C-alpha cells in the first residue's frame, strides 16, 4: 500500500512549539512512560482519551510510594503507618477540593468513579425526594451512566424520566430545556462535556434556570474535569462528579462533590465500617459527612494517585491545557472534515476534546481496526451513549479524543490512517 505523505491534506503543518504559548508538549510527553512505544510496528498514537487517559510518572510513583512506604488502613490505627496513610488520604481530599474550587473538604466524597457518584445521588437524594408522578430531567446527550441510575430510580418510584432534546449540531436547546422544568421536576442531571459529541453544555445557565424553581442540579463532569478549569461554586451546581482515570489518575477512584447541607441531609449509601459513629444491634449512629458515604476500607492508593494527577494538572495549568486541547481540536476538525466522505457528528459551537465522525460506506469498527494497524488508538461504537446514536440515526461512530500529550503530528497520522481506510475500502 502506498503512503500518503504528500497528500494535500497534510500541508500546512504548524511547528508544535508555536501553539499555546507556555505549553511544551514534548516535555509533557516525556512525563508519560506509556506513550513511548510502538503499536503494530508504528509509534503509538493514543487518541482514546475520552475512554481513559494515560498516567504521568508522578501518579505511578505516588502509588508505588504508598505501597512501599506507608500502606495501612486509615482512620483506625493508632500506629505510625496508619497515621501517615490517613493524613495522605485526607490531603488528597483537600487536593480535590482545590481542583474543583469547592468550599470545604467535607464536600468531597471518594467513590469508584463518576458512575458510582451518580448512583449514590440517585439512591440517596433521589430515593428520598423523588416519588410517584415526580420527574427527573436529563438531556438527550447523556452517557448511559447518567441515564440508567435515574431510569432505575424512576421505575422504582413510578416517576417519569424526562429528556431535554438537542439540535442537529448536538447542542442543548435552552428554551426546550426550560419548558421541561415543571412543578414535578425533583432533580436535573446533565453532562458538562458530552463524551460522544464533545458538546460543552452551558452549565451556569442550566443551574440558574433550575434554581429559579428550587430544583437541584447534578453535573456529570467525567469529560470536563480533565479538559477545563471547573469551579463548582461559580457553576453553583449542587452535585458534580468525575472519574480519576479520565483525569490522568488511577482507575477505581472517582469523586462526588455535593453541597454540604444536601450531603448532611442525605441518608447513607452503603452500610458498614467507617460510615458509623456507633453501632449496637438496636441502633447505629452514622458518621459525619464525608465519612458517612465512605463505607468500608476505601481505595487508599486511589486518592493518593489522584492527588498526584491533580497536582500535575495544576502545575501545567488547566487554562493552558484547555487552550492547547482547543487548538488540537480545531486542527483535527479542519483536517478530518476535509477528507472526502467523512461527516462529523457533533458540531456544537462550544466543544472540547472529542471528534466523532462517520465515513461513507465504511463501518466505524472497520475504521478502528485499520487505524489500529497504523498504531492509532481510537474508539468505535456507541460510546455508551446509544440514545445519542439513535438521535443521529446511527449505530456507531468513530471517535478520536484528545489529551494534553497529543500533538498535531499525531492528528496528521490520524488523517493518513483515514486515507488508508479509503484505500482499503475503495
Amino acid at each position, binding site marked *: 500500500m502506498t503512503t500518503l505523505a504528500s497528500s494535500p491534506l497534510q500541508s500546512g503543518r504548524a511547528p508544535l512549539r508555536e501553539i499555546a504559548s507556555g505549553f511544551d508538549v514534548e516535555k509533557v510527553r516525556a512525563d508519560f512512560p506509556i506513550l513511548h512505544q510502538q503499536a503494530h510496528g508504528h509509534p503509538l498514537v493514543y487518541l482514546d482519551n475520552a475512554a481513559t487517559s494515560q498516567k504521568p510518572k508522578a501518579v505511578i510513583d505516588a502509588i508505588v510510594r504508598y505501597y512501599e512506604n506507608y500502606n495501612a488502613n486509615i482512620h483506625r490505627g493508632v500506629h505510625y503507618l496508619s497515621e501517615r496513610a490517613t493524613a495522605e488520604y485526607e490531603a488528597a481530599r483537600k487536593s480535590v477540593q482545590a481542583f474543583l474550587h469547592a468550599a470545604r473538604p467535607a464536600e468531597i466524597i471518594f467513590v469508584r468513579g463518576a458512575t458510582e457518584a451518580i448512583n449514590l445521588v440517585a439512591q440517596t437524594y433521589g430515593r428520598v425526594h423523588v416519588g410517584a408522578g415526580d420527574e427527573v430531567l436529563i438531556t438527550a446527550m447523556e452517557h448511559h451512566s447518567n441515564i440508567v441510575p435515574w431510569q432505575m430510580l424512576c421505575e422504582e418510584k413510578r416517576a417519569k424520566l424526562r429528556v431535554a432534546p438537542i439540535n442537529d449540531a448536538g447542542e442543548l436547546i435552552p428554551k426546550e430545556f426550560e419548558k421541561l422544568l415543571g412543578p414535578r421536576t425533583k432533580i436535573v442531571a446533565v453532562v458538562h462535556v458530552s463524551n460522544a459529541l464533545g458538546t460543552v453544555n452551558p452549565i451556569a445557565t442550566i443551574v440558574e434556570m433550575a434554581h429559579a424553581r428550587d430544583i437541584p442540579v447534578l453535573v456529570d463532569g467525567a469529560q470536563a474535569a480533565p479538559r477545563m478549569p471547573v469551579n463548582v461554586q461559580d457553576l453553583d451546581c449542587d452535585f458534580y462528579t468525575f472519574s480519576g482515570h479520565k483525569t490522568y489518575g488511577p482507575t477505581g477512584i472517582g469523586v462526588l462533590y455535593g453541597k454540604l447541607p444536601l450531603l448532611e441531609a442525605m441518608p447513607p449509601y452503603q452500610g458498614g465500617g467507617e460510615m458509623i459513629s456507633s453501632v449496637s444491634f438496636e441502633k447505629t449512629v452514622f458518621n459525619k459527612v464525608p465519612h458517612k458515604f465512605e463505607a468500608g476500607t476505601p481505595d487508599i492508593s486511589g486518592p493518593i494517585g489522584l492527588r498526584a494527577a491533580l497536582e500535575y494538572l495544576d502545575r501545567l495549568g488547566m487554562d493552558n491545557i484547555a487552550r492547547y486541547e482547543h487548538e488540537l481540536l480545531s486542527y483535527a476538525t479542519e483536517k478530518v472534515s476535509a477528507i472526502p466522505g467523512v461527516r462529523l457528528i457533533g458540531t456544537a459551537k462550544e466543544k472540547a476534546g472529542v471528534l466523532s465522525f462517520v465515513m461513507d460506506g465504511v463501518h466505524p*469498527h472497520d475504521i478502528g481496526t485499520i487505524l489500529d494497524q497504523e498504531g492509532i488508538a481510537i474508539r468505535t461504537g456507541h460510546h455508551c451513549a446509544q440514545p445519542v446514536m439513535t438521535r443521529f440515526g446511527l*449505530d456507531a461512530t468513530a471517535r478520536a479524543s484528545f489529551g494534553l500529550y497529543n500533538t498535531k503530528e499525531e492528528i496528521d497520522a490520524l488523517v493518513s490512517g483515514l486515507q488508508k481506510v479509503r484505500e482499503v475500502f475503495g
Partner: protein
Amino acid sequence: MADLRDLYQELILEHSKAPRNYRELKHADHKAEGYNPLCGDHFTVFVKMEGDHIRDIAFQGSGCAISKASASMMTQSLKGKTKAEAEKLFERFHKVVTGQAVNGDQAELGKLAVFSGVSEFPTRVKCATLAWHTLEAALEGKQESVSTE
C-alpha cells in the same frame, strides 16, 4: 505482524458492499436476531426448512464489513445443507477464525476459508461469528436474541 489484506480480502469487501440473500424471508419458519452490543452490529437471520434441509436462508441488518460479509457468505454456503451439515460447518468456521484449525478444516470450508485472516485480529472474531451464532439460535428455535458479548 498481521496484514490488513489478510482480513479485508477482496471477496470479503465485495460481499460487504453487495451482500447476497439480503432480504426478509416472508415465509421463514425459523428466525432470530443477533446483536453485538459493543459495536452496534445487529442482524436478523431467516430460515425456511424443508424436512431436515435448509431450503432458503436470508438475512437483514447492519454491521461492519466483516460481520456483513460473513452473514452474506454464510447464507450462500448453507442453502440446501442439512441442519447437521450447517452445525458442522459452523464448528469448522469457528476453529478457522479463532486460529484453532487443524488439517482439513480450511479445505472443508470452501470459500468461507477467506475468513481465516480474522484469526490474526482477535477483536474481530465476534464480528465474523455473529451471523452464525444467530443462525444457531434460529435453528434451535430460541426466542430471545443472541449476543456475542
